[in-house]
């Protein structure tokens, strides 16, 4: 009889809260392929606590696959991913659910639930994890998250009634609602006009400062990367080809790096 075995969600959450690590994400020797197409080959990356790392690369280079591996949406063949000290590939579904409370994901397509209002979209993760929270507290958290992105007035609107930029902001509010320690951004400014894209980029920085989150930002929008990233990783041929600050890489003589900055 394993009496001390962590079986309930609340026990696992408590355990998760106790374990802190200076390294928010550690990716070592990651390999991922789809059939004969090897997307990631021996990819390595470290994200420190509070750090914001942008991963840039061509379309189809495996950037989105990388963060989906980090959150456990896609299984990988080789390598190790540690998120907040937990080995992602060794977690069972309940442990993965607990980890996902601390790790938020902003989808490229926003992925707002069409059949729910903005309020219900934001309440959805709350009602599942904070089951004993009172309605007033849930309302307050929803309003706080929406106020952070400047959209408190849209609370009872449907996602279809919002513009592209507003949908992105609501999706960002939904990622913030559980007060995550890590946020994974998948192309946060794709499909937005330059002004809205800049606003979203600054919003990401504000959130980063306010909540002290660590993040991986997948993008090929260099102005977004310049505003948001502490460190830039260039993904070429499945490997981290170059790594450094935005300004350092922009001065590089390497042709492959220069191509990105033209």
């Amino acid at each position: 009889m394993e009496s001390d075995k962590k079986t309930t969600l609340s026990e696992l959450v408590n355990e998760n809260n106790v374990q802190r690590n200076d390294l928010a994400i550690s990716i070592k020797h990651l390999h991922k392929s789809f059939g004969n197409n090897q997307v990631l080959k021996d990819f390595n990356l470290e994200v420190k606590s509070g750090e914001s790392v942008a991963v840039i690369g061509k379309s189809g280079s495996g950037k989105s696959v990388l963060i989906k591996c980090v959150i456990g949406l896609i299984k990988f063949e080789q390598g190790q991913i540690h998120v907040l000290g937990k080995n992602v590939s060794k977690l069972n579904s309940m442990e993965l659910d607990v980890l996902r409370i601390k790790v938020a994901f902003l989808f490229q397509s926003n992925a707002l639930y069409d059949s729910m209002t903005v309020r219900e979209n934001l309440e959805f993760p709350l009602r599942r994890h904070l089951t004993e929270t009172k309605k007033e507290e849930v309302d307050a958290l929803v309003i706080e998250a929406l106020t952070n992105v400047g959209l408190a007035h849209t609370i009872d609107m449907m996602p279809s009634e919002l513009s592209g930029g507003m949908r992105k902001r609501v999706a960002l509010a939904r990622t913030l609602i559980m007060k995550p320690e890590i946020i994974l951004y998948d192309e946060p400014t794709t499909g937005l006009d330059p002004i809205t894209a800049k606003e979203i980029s600054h919003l990401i920085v504000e959130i980063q400062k306010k909540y002290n989150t660590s993040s991986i930002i997948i993008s090929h929008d260099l102005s977004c990367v310049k505003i948001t990233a502490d460190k830039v990783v260039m993904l070429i041929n499945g490997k981290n080809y170059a790594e450094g600050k935005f300004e350092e890489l922009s001065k590089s003589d390497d042709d492959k790096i220069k191509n990105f900055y033209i």
Partner: protein
Amino acid sequence: MVPKVVYEFFDELGMISYFGWRFFKEGIKPRYEFREMIRQCYYVGYKSLGLVALTAFIMGLVITIQSRPTLVEFGAEDWLPKMVSVSLVREIAPVITALICAGKVGSGMSAELGAMKVTEQIDAMDVSGTNPFKYLVVTRVFATTFMVPLLVILADAISLYGGYLGCNIRGVVSWQLYWNQVYETLSYGDVLPSIIKTFFFGYAIGVIGCFKGYYTDKGTEGVGKSANAAVVLSSVMVFIIDLIAVQIIDILNLT
């Protein structure tokens, strides 16, 4: 060497079977999504009421009008309520109702889940710590499994009423005489097996509709294809289940 078509057929059959089994596996484990289950029951049951009622009424009316000349030819016009009630309750109402549900509910589920899949809403549910299979699939399959039989009971009643009106278009049959003949003819052996098989109809419609939607790929084009495939496959499945049910009823001599 197994032809590709045969391989794909058995591959899909295996996947649907596993999907159907997973409904029970995930369904018995907490947490139970009661709120979503009730919402789905409302959509499957209440939102299909009008369509099922209308088609059931027309079915009853048409079957009665079409059968009358043949019975008149053999001097068996009095048997019209008996014949109509047996054919409606045993076979026509359950199968037609199931086919309507396959078209309306099955395609709707497939398109909804397919759209959620291609817009990453299912992934979003997953990363928010919600089991999307439990929330989306278990609730919908539960709703079809329990709402289709209720719709069939309603369709039985309304189609029999349509049959009464049909009897009175060319002849005169009193309300009491009509229902007396119906009750005399129908036994539990007619009603119960036909209701029991509709649970399987509902289960098949839900599983196939959700399966096709849940595994949609190739963007919006894939959503349309999934909805179409869900209707075709679940309609065929209704007939296959009906065939098996008829054989079992016959072997067990239930009628």
